[in-house]
């Protein structure tokens, strides 16, 4: 098993944090993992994306050219990356901001992440919703290891945010998981 994941959205949507958590979760499950932040032509403003690989074997380049999974947080990132997703791959899109038309490519799953996040108490945790949904929608990682990884990346920042973030992961998971 070797899965390439691209997570992409506006700056400020927590793209990098989401990728980081997936990596840590992969580590917990004894996988090989890499994380690669990517800056495009636009250094300032515009979209941010990161590339995560989770694998049972050694990982060469940490760069994901043709992702198995795309986590798209907004429209521009969908436009940019969806054509590169492998046919047998899967696209998780934040349907609160953008609802793409179905097309005969990779499987498309909409998650109203902003809405779910708002329900959890803060629109800011939409990234957590998305990785919760990722766990449910791809089975690459277990929800447990994802949840357990949340405190690691927030440690130094604020303990008081653990809860809401974990809740958001669960909410995302539940949205697809059930």
């Amino acid at each position, binding site marked *: 098993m070797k899965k390439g994941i691209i997570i992409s959205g506006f700056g400020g949507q927590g793209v990098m944090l989401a990728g980081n958590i997936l990596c840590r979760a992969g580590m917990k499950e004894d996988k090989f993992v890499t994380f690669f932040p990517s800056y495009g*032509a636009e*250094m*300032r*403003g515009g979209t941010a994306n990161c590339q995560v690989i989770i694998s049972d074997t050694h990982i060469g380049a940490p760069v994901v050219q043709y992702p198995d999974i795309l986590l798209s947080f907004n429209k521009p990132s969908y436009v940019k990356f969806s054509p590169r997703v492998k046919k047998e791959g899967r696209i998780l899109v934040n349907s609160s901001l953008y609802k793409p038309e179905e097309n005969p490519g990779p499987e498309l799953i909409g998650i109203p992440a902003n809405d779910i996040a708002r329900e959890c108490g803060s629109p800011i945790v939409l990234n957590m919703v998305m990785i919760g949904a990722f766990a449910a929608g791809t089975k690459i990682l277990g929800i447990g290891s994802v949840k357990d990884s949340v405190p690691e990346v927030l440690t130094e920042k604020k303990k008081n945010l653990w809860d809401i973030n974990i809740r958001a992961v669960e909410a995302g998971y539940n949205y697809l998981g059930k």
Partner: protein
Amino acid sequence: MSRRLPESLKKIPHTYCPGCGHGIIHRLVAESLDELELREKTVAIAPVGCAVFGYHYWNFDTAEAAHGRPPAAATGIKRVLPDRIVITYQGDGDLAAIGGNEIIHAANRGENISVFFVNNACYGMTGGQMAPTTMFDQVTTTTPLGRTLEDGYPVKVCELLSVLEGVSYIERVAVNSPANIMKAKKAVKKALGYQARNRGFTLVEFLSMCPTGWKVSPEKSLEWIDERMLRIFPLGVYKDKG
């Protein structure tokens, strides 16, 4: 009064952060070239810094020189094309750190060019590191506990360069309010006018918002200039040989 974007700007959006001063300064330069009818005579050098993509936004001939070397490149142009308008557009890292020698010698030679110097008190492009103009206690990514004496004093470019005899006009302006922007525009036009009349080296320093580097909101960045920068970098004309 109608306000159309000047011909010296291409009609495309730029990629600077929200609230970034570069956009305003780009426009001021472009408007001034239009108004002085210099657009078709101008060759500009963009810096290595956030404004490296200046050539995407300006509608006049532009090149990108190596980090810090725009004054040398501009000298090369001006010496072979003395009747063109040659400008450099440089950040504080570009001009005052790595390019300190080139700017001093261009100024000292009285090289007949106009330098538009954007002081945002940090290295924007590379992620908000300390610049020569970073102020004491200012937190940047390479002064995580704030700039201290060990890192050196904030460099005051106008004060330093105005000592040099080759300099004909130097002014420091800011772009954080409508009034300041108007004054800034006057300074730009003055510098370009001097160049057109072969008066020698001119420089305008802009105190310019960098909300990203300062980690504040665009609105706060306007106040940041008033509250933090103006004490260290007073506005005004530092030299004017007329």
